[in-house]
């Protein structure tokens, strides 16, 4: 029966693989369902790190989570005013 199903049933992929893919996405979404407070403190810490290396326009920072069907991305738009002298040599 099984091999008949595989012969005539189209796709070779079992529903287990589909479950795995869907589960992965669901969990990414669940886990990134983060509170505004958390996003704020994330933003503050990113700013702290960045200002060690460059002057940034803290008023115009945009940080958000971008979700689509397949994945979630942390998208940040941070205008740089000036790279600090010496930050390159520091590496």
């Amino acid at each position, binding site marked *: 029966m*099984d*091999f008949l199903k595989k012969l005539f049933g189209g796709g070779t*992929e*079992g*529903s*287990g*693989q589909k*479950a*795995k893919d*869907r*589960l*992965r996405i*669901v*969990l990414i979404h*669940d*886990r990134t369902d983060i509170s505004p407070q958390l996003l704020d403190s994330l933003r503050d810490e990113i700013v702290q790190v960045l200002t060690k290396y460059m002057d940034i326009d803290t008023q115009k920072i945009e940080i958000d989570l971008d979700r689509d069907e397949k994945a979630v991305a942390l998208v940040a738009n941070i205008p740089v005013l000036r790279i600090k002298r010496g930050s390159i040599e520091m590496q």
Partner: protein
Amino acid sequence: MAARVIVTTSGKGGVGKTTSTANIAAALAKFGKKVVAVDADVGLRNLDVIMGLENRVVYNFIDVIEKTCKLAQALVKDKRVPGLYLLPAAQTRTKDAVNPEQMVALCEELKPDFDFILLDCPAGIEGGFKNAAAGADEALVVTTPEIPAVRDADRIIGMLESMGKSPIRLIINRLRPNMVQDGDMLAKDDILDVLSIDLIGVVPEDESVIRATNNGEPMTMTLDSPAAHAYLNIAERLLGRDVPLMDLESYATRGLVSKIKKFFSGKRNKR
């Protein structure tokens, strides 16, 4: 003695918390430990029936908390296995009849007399779960190989972590090796990949679970079945012994065709 307090949780309902609690408790007692299984599912008690002790319940732990009776009066001693006890839940009360502080105090009172306190938690993430989890140091999270159960397990694991429970270990219940082999069920490693917590055991789908419930006798007491074996292994791992995962495939009841298929595909299927 100072008991280890372990809560059995899941998030999603009906995945096997009570079955797991009863069987692990009986197994630990068989290994010579003094164990109390506490039914923390107030209002929907089931552990007494699964353990086959329903006729011996007189008081419950709410009575203890409200000082209607002494702790020793509420404990039901299992006569089949030395060292095994049940502390029943109240059936006619609601989850609000207890608060986390009272659960902690109850566990503290039990601790000196036992090696293990197993708390059978209700489904959900509300009061009932929080009460049960409050008293525990360690947690067992039960899931089945299905998206909704794993998803809810993930949620519960996050909550248990933030409550500082450790270790938190996973039981995968009702796995069907045949379906995994055919690629039609989430495999053990798929689940571990996404949840990234330690596994303490995999329990196969097994008719003996129903038979054991009908008889009111936890499988680990007598039955020699795949699920009983899996729960005995889990109990041993709780005791710190290094027991290899059982080869569920060899238990799989498959037709001739697949046996031939397996024969020809040789080692490839071994994991």
